[in-house]
């Protein structure tokens, strides 16, 4: 059964810190991996990663995929209180099936 595991489950940091969130997966036919941010409402899309070793970047957020070791990381530099959220990792893993399965998420709290 395909599985997504995120770590840590929760994290508390101070403004200005850099954080690294982890997502590891066990899949049979990998297609892509997605990162989402969830504040109070619906998850909002951050990145889609398909190729190994190519960094995706948006402002202070960046993410990279390692298909050999089956994991991805999401980095947030110079954190702000507005980065406080749950960060979710998911994939349409199975080739031809595209069933988006989510990890349990990392709950990030950034203190002023």
């Amino acid at each position, binding site marked *: 059964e395909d599985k997504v595991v995120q770590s840590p489950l929760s994290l508390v940091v101070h403004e200005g810190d850099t954080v690294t969130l982890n997502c590891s997966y066990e899949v049979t036919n990998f*297609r*892509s991996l*997605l990162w989402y941010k969830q504040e109070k*409402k*619906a*998850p*909002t*899309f951050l990145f*889609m990663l398909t190729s190994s070793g190519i960094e995706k970047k948006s402002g202070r957020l960046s993410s990279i995929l390692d298909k050999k070791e089956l994991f991805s990381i999401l980095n947030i530099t110079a954190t702000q209180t507005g980065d406080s959220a749950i960060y*979710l990792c*998911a994939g*349409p893993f199975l080739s031809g*099936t*595209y*069933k*988006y*399965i*989510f*990890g*349990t*998420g990392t709950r990030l709290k950034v203190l002023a």
Partner: protein
Amino acid sequence: DARVTQTPRHKVTEMGQEVTMRCQPILGHNTVFWYRQTMMQGLELLAYFRNRAPLDDSGMPKDRFSAEMPDATLATLKIQPSEPRDSAVYFCASGLVGQVNTEAFFGQGTRLTVV
């Protein structure tokens, strides 16, 4: 601005009552997902449809839950009879899957409370 629309946004009902949640996916998307989110379980996939056909509903309690897509603009999730343990936020999401894959776009969710 294309978005997934869910109704109702909030629902409080008594145990044993039927609950129907509705979702209008983004026009042109061929895949629709229903998720349930609780503090304990996170985001669980209940069911999903491709081109209106149900592909997988293994995440759904079959005895009380049912999901349908009567047309391309409407997906429904029904619980009958509802139980307190069904209290959660239910999200609908849609995406375009095929030669080019998009991410899943989420609706704002239906917060269900069963008392």
